[in-house]
């Protein structure tokens, strides 16, 4: 366990192992993503109430699920960097924020587009959308805080604290928004319950969720690799790498 941690803490090792992982994971992810999109768009029957517009679910729900999970990944990485002072956790945490923000953005935009044919309006203050909006604010707060610090090491620590505070708060925020929505519930608007989703719709959805998770991992690793190179620019292994690969 400890040696594994030590290895994780070694930048050249992390760089090379993440390169190997990416070589396999990235193609698989792209194929799964393409397959899921084609399946969801072309090979499933439309929803009996919402018609074809429900096909947006295949990107909206995965983006939302992974965006939320991404915040927890970020907070856990932050906790590791604070407790064990592991620099790689810092790098991972920093890389999570923009990806999570982008996924949250996707979830919001697709939700809004979905809302137009379903509810007849681009934006509804529904519990889930409101929660996603707050999640976007949380992500952007982390990005803004990171950018505001000149000392990047301090920036990482500060963002780690902020993301931990966010992790404690997210369940509270989600529960309160849920409760708030049930208090003010406009009667007619409701999702078709996802619990009763038909298997023929569920399988492509599960595929897409997995693909989004894989995509998140790929982006995370790629961002970490770039960040590693920048932080370790003065070391021998990066300079060797630059000689090999920089001249293309």
């Amino acid at each position, binding site marked *: 366990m400890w040696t594994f941690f030590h290895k994780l803490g070694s930048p050249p090792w992390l760089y090379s192992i993440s390169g190997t992982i990416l070589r396999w994971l990235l193609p698989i992810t792209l194929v799964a993503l393409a397959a899921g999109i084609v399946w969801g768009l072309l090979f499933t029957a439309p929803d009996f109430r919402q018609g074809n517009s429900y096909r947006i679910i295949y990107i909206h729900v995965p983006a939302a699920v992974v965006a939320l999970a991404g915040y927890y990944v970020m907070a856990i990485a932050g906790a590791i960097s604070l407790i064990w*002072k592991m620099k790689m956790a810092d790098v991972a945490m920093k890389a999570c924020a923009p990806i999570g923000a982008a996924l949250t953005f996707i979830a919001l935009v697709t939700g809004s587009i979905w809302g137009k044919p379903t509810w007849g309006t681009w934006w509804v203050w529904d519990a889930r959308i409101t929660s996603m909006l707050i999640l976007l604010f949380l992500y952007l707060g982390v990005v803004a805080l990171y950018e505001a610090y000149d*000392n990047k*090491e*301090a920036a990482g*620590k500060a963002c780690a604290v902020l993301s931990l505070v966010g992790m404690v708060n997210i369940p509270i925020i989600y529960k309160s928004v849920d409760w708030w929505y049930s208090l003010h519930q406009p009667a007619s608007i409701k999702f078709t319950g996802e619990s009763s989703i038909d298997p023929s719709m569920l399988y492509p959805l599960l595929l897409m969720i997995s693909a989004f998770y894989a995509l998140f991992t790929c982006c995370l690793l790629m961002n970490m690799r770039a960040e590693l190179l920048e932080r370790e620019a*003065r070391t021998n292994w990066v300079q060797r790498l630059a000689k090999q690969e920089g001249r293309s």
Partner: protein
Amino acid sequence: MPDTPTAHRPLLSASGLSLERGGRELFSALSFEVLPGHLLQIEGANGAGKTSLIRILAGLSRYGFTGSVTRHAPLLYLGHQAGVKALLTPRENLAWHVGGEGDYDDERIRDALARVGLYGYENVPSHALSAGQHRRVNLARLYLSESPLWLLDEPFTAIDRSGVLDLENLLVEHVERGGAVVMTSHQALQVTYEVRFLSLLEGLRL
């Protein structure tokens, strides 16, 4: 409490301290111990990392360096800023100090302020005092403090000639009592006591 100082037990020990800023190595593998009776002056040009080192020693800098610092005794740190609130009087500044070192009664505070040449200024609002007098209020903490280990960053800044003399005497008194002082300063100490020098590049020397 420096009552029976065991001369060989260090008050502070640093091992393998290295610091890099902006790709430049300020110091590396710096190891030393501060024993009771030591008067240690950190040497180096502007930007050499003196303040960084003293902040690491105090425990204010916790990231960005390698090596370890162990503090075995309560310490008193005086930094660049005076830490004096303009809205409080010198007496209140000392009595309610956020450092939380001790309960000082008015008499002790009056004595300490008198020692730094602020007799009669106890209840004047600090915004009526000059920058040098703010620093003196801060230095009055040295007369109140019972911490054996003092970390002083440029204590002579904005202090006039007689103030410097008083302060030098105080430092010697403190180390003779079994305390220890680690300080940075651009000027050489005019004291008869043995001063140790810590060069950021070469390490400890006499």
